[in-house]
């Protein structure tokens, strides 16, 4: 190959490289759109009570599993938390200050061989960059349950119920639980911020919607 031919070939190659240089923003956005397609639109107010949480667990296999090529949109810490996790698409919530908000489901077996099903609220910018995430509703049978409610002002409420051993014979018909009520808001930059947290322990009565406080724990049973 002559020097002239070599220079010509090099020029063409460089030109071509310039032409086909990937536009990462466009590609990412396109992938992000693909990612969002599998989420069901959900308006406010939105509630996941006990029945909905157990429905999510019992029907998890019928939900769309996020494929490997789209897992770039799952927060790294979540992906690394339990490598055997399956992630599924749940809901895309109303857009908020140009922030895209979705609920994804994580389903895995933990180190104690218990099945854990929980959903996470994830906020993204328009390009699909993760801004923040927060665990919300979920369940591990016989250990804990958490429910969720979001109102039209994007006030997010999470009620977590953790089991404690009930030693009072006359209270056996009730569940002894620690109830932790969280409240979150989303900031203008997409951060999910805890604004309230209250904790109480007591006896609760369960129904299909959740747990209702009945009475506090006697001092002697603490």
């Amino acid at each position, binding site marked *: 190959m002559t020097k002239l031919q070599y220079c010509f070939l090099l020029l063409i190659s460089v030109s071509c490289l310039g032409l086909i240089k990937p536009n990462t923003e466009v590609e990412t956005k396109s992938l992000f759109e693909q990612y969002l397609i599998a989420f069901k639109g959900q308006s406010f107010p939105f509630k996941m009570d006990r*029945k909905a949480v157990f*429905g999510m667990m*019992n029907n998890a296999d019928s939900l769309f599993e996020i494929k490997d090529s789209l897992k770039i949109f799952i927060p790294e810490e979540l992906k690394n938390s339990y490598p055997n996790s399956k992630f599924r698409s749940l809901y895309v919530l109303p857009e908020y200050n140009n922030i895209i908000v979705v609920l994804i489901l994580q389903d895995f077996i933990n180190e104690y061989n218990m099945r854990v099903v929980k959903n996470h609220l994830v906020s993204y910018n328009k390009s699909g960059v993760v801004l923040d995430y927060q665990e919300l509703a979920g369940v591990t*049978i*016989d250990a804990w349950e958490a429910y969720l409610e979001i109102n039209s002002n994007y006030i997010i409420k999470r009620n977590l119920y953790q089991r404690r051993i*009930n030693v009072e014979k006359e209270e056996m018909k009730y569940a002894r639980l620690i109830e932790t009520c969280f409240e979150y808001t989303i900031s203008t930059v997409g951060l999910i911020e805890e604004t309230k947290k209250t904790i109480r322990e007591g006896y609760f009565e*369960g129904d299909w919607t959740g747990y209702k406080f009945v009475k506090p724990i006697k001092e002697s049973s603490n």
Partner: protein
Amino acid sequence: MNIVDLDGMDWYQTSDKDGNAVEGGAVMWRDGSDAVDGYSNIGTSYTMDLGDGVSMTYNQNTPESMTETVLNEGDWETQRELVYDKNGNITGSQNKQPVETEGNCFYQAGQMVSNSGATSLGGGNDINTTDGQIDYMNEQIGNGNSVRVQVDYNGNGDGDHWVATSSRTTNLQTQTSTYNFYDPGTVWSDEGTHHTNTFNVNNGAISGPTHYNNKTYTVTAVRKNQ
């Protein structure tokens, strides 16, 4: 006399000095919803304990349903035991050891039948027709006995779990019955004995939800007692 609460007739129970109804205190149904000295208004319905595990629920003064109980909360048995993390927090439950007995739903459902005073038989004594299952549960509950019931919980048609009947409630208007059951599949007594653990008869099948995992059980067999 059947009276609708147009003029506010209600049930009243003796109350303490703070005005709270006293559990086990005298109960009466009376005209009007006004305060009565020494009594607390406890609402429009009341369940009266008739003894021997039988109770009657009234809506105003109309008897609406009768419940015959063959297992009480103390009779519930579980196949599960708690699992803790290294900090002592509850992380869930697992089958007890040995799994052939203590950790087995069939065994624990049989124990509950024993707690009612009956003995559940071994293999080859299953009733597989819905009508036969209903008749047998009715007969045994009428005699004060629980029965061991096999259920399908994943919809594949196979029996894969066992529970024990705990009561029968008969709607006195329609003369139809529902059957409550105790579930050994959870570690918590409030879940295993939950009042919504109920079998209904619909379209030729007996089925109903269990509260601890919100799954629907469909009866596949009823095991005879001795």
